[in-house]
């Protein structure tokens, strides 16, 4: 398990920060979304950032994308470009951080680490932005120096907007170095850092994609529009689940849930199984927004958006899709609009009907799954809360429990036919803790969106 999650004071972090100087970062795979996004982020605080890709032209594309993403000429003045064949060794030779953002393929990453290992200075930090591969496996068999300087630094996409970041030390990673990277990322890069264990999909994606995949499973019977209404903003998220999968990309979604399904065995195992229809549609090129179509597709100008009919694979205008009575969602939203979140959640829990029951089951599943991962992916529920809040922009599980009350959370989870996590049972019985989420600077209300 990773070291303590106790937040450090600003003075402690500034002291840690002064222990090293980061003057040069080399980004490998700088043409990919995470590569150029991370590289752009590094330019905020680092005077020299090298964009490397398979070809120099690809690296240049990455640089152009980075400039476009953050809209600042600063990026260009601090960046240089190169390709692996000609420039990797020379770029790494005096790098302070070597940041790997290649495609999520173990063999490809291994090959490049072979070269990095030979070229890097002994004291350089090697970070990987992998969202799924094991940190320990990625550095297995390498030199002591490599393993001591290697860690996962998992930014979320796009890194210039989403501050939640997972920090995943390996078994041999130097503890002071991990502390330094945490301080550097917090102070210089403005990150909200969460330490997680080296478990499949770490904390955020493990908990988040379970909910997303369950929504995708539900969509087979209910259709995408109804699912996104049921698990919509009023349940504590700015973006609806299936629209999120479209944004992330179906292929990325598959990679994450397949990894979790294959490498974990937990109480919600089947909710991590990719629906067959998604695999079949991906074979036909459906990948979400990047392919122009996923659960949703943009309509013509001034036309309603189009919605996937899962059985036929065709798209229908949204306004032709009949929905059942969902008045309860309007009632909840009216409370949220006035900042009456407790009353909003009570109205949700009291709502009757099959649709409300499905929505409650999804939320109960999210809360229970998250609380059951404590001790496995993070030391406390706070780590999961922080990454769900700052990484997914979802109401953290603790915020949902606090807002509805622990006793109501017990009822909700029992009602969904799930086992209630012990911590929630204890809170309901003893009244302690009064709140699970107590970050002094974070507003729980911001996660509840009306409408």
């Amino acid at each position, binding site marked *: 398990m990773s070291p303590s999650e106790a937040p450090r004071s600003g003075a402690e972090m500034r002291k840690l920060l002064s222990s090293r100087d980061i003057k040069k970062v080399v980004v490998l795979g700088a043409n990919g979304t995470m590569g150029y996004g991370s590289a752009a982020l590094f330019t905020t605080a680092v005077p020299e950032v090298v964009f490397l890709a398979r070809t120099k032209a690809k690296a240049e594309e990455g640089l152009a994308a980075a400039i476009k993403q953050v809209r600042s*000429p600063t990026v260009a003045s601090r960046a240089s470009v190169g390709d692996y064949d000609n420039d990797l060794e020379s770029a790494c030779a005096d790098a302070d951080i070597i940041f790997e953002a290649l495609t999520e393929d173990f063999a490809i990453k291994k090959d490049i680490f072979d070269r990095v290992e030979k070229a890097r200075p002994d004291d350089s930090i090697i970070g990987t932005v992998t969202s799924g591969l094991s940190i320990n496996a990625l550095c297995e068999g390498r030199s002591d120096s490599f393993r001591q300087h290697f860690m996962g630094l998992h930014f979320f996409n796009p890194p210039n907007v989403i*501050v939640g970041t997972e920090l995943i030390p390996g078994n041999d990673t130097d503890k002071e170095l991990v502390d330094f990277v945490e301080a550097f990322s917090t102070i210089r890069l403005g990150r909200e850092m969460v330490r997680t264990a080296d478990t499949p999909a770490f904390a955020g994606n493990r908990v988040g994609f379970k909910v997303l995949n369950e929504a995708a499973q539900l969509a087979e019977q209910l259709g995408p529009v109804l699912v996104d209404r049921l698990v919509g903003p009023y349940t504590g998220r700015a973006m609806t689940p299936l629209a999120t999968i479209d944004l992330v990309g179906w292929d990325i979604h598959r990679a994450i849930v397949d990894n979790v399904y294959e490498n974990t065995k937990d109480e919600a195992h089947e909710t991590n199984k990719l629906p067959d229809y998604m695999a079949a549609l991906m074979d036909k090129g459906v990948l979400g927004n990047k392919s122009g179509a996923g659960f949703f597709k943009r309509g013509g100008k001034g036309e309603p958006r189009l919605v996937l009919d899962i059985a036929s694979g065709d798209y229908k205008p949204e306004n032709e899709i009949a929905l059942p009575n969902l008045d309860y969602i309007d009632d909840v939203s009216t409370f*949220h609009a006035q*900042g009456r979140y407790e009353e909003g959640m009570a109205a949700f829990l009291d709502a009757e009907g099959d649709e409300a029951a499905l929505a409650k089951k999804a939320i109960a599943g999210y809360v229970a799954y998250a609380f059951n991962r404590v001790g496995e992916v993070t030391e406390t529920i706070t780590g999961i809360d922080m990454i769900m809040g700052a990484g997914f922009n979802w109401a953290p599980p603790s915020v949902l429990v606090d807002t509805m009350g622990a006793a109501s959370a017990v009822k909700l989870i029992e009602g969904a036919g799930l086992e209630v996590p012990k911590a929630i049972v204890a809170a309901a019985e003893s009244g302690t803790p009064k709140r699970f989420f107590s*970050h002094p600077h974070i507003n729980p209300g*911001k996660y509840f969106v009306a409408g």
Partner: protein
Amino acid sequence: MSTPEVYVIGGYQTDFARNWTKENKHFSALMRESVLGALERCNIDPEDIESAHVGNFAAGLYCMQGHLGAFFTEVHPAFSGLPTGRHEAACASGSIALLAAAAEIEAGRYDLQAVVGIEQMKTVSAAEGGAFLGTAAWYEQEAKDIEFPFPKLFGKLGDEYDKRYGLKDEHLAEISRINYDNAKLNPNAQTRTWYMNKEHALCRTDDNAEVGGRIRIADCSQVTDGAVCVFLASRAYAEKYAERGGMKLGDIPRIKGWGHNTARLRFVDKVFESRNDQFVLPHVRSTIANAQKRAGIADTGGIDGIETHDCFTTSEYMAIDHFGITAPGESWKAVEEGWLEIDGKIPINPSGGLIGAGHPVGSTGVRQLLDAYLQVTGQAGAYQVEGAKNFQTLNIGGSGTTSCSFLVGV
């Protein structure tokens, strides 16, 4: 007889990065979250609140809503019957509400006051909002038919410095850089995820477009939505509160001093009046000095940090010499020496200030007081100034028209 003491019990700030229109939320939600958040954070029963004040600039324009004090009754049933009121002095509205609440405590009327500074601004387009802000100046003479009048007025403040003492863009860019860097440490700062560094602040392309003379985007604070609630208490209440929380009375910060002045509305008149003065805005100077004098503190050397009104980089540049950190006209020295950084000689805006933390107009004065409270009680988290005991605020309405300052300390 000495003036009765006014204590600061604590408070709560909404995240200034939030856009409440995008959350589909009404003004009342903003009010509720700040007040309920403060009650919970401070562990105070709503029944204890005896009077309440709202500082707000222009809800009538932005939200088509007046009578803001009455919204306390929507926050909690215990507030039914509470004396409430609303105060306005442009961007200093929050401080005016605080002054009124503090005066009621000094007068012995009430023992515990809730003060909310609040503004919801993302309800309208930037151009429309810019015109609304123009009403903080003499609208007809300085703002009517002018796009974004305030950057232009504070651009003129820079021009006046340039004329009297010389002014370099790189010093303004460095002020912007510090505020943005500090904001990265503040989880409630509007700009904490924005891309900024000194090079960007100095860039002269459309990525950092000109909005008013020498004022470019990076020199500006930005409009946003936000509310802050703090509680002010009499000595009697503070004693009870300290006992209940296992604290000593001396652990609870108090408003040791305050200053409050008004200058002529039009910027040209202010500058004309100060033509023979060493300070460009002498009323701002006297506001700062009055607060220090009332606190029994000789000068800025006796304070550990400042939350100042950097609506633009030029207003912070002005504040530096008006606080006496440097001789008049030499603010650049403090910038170059690194004195203003969180671990510098006299940190300014560890929160990120208005440029970094955001400027929901009516809430700013209250936000500054809350940040001063957090600093002197060691609760400012990553932006904590180590060992801070005394912090001073400076809140300005209009183009240096209304000035308010509080000196908060333990």
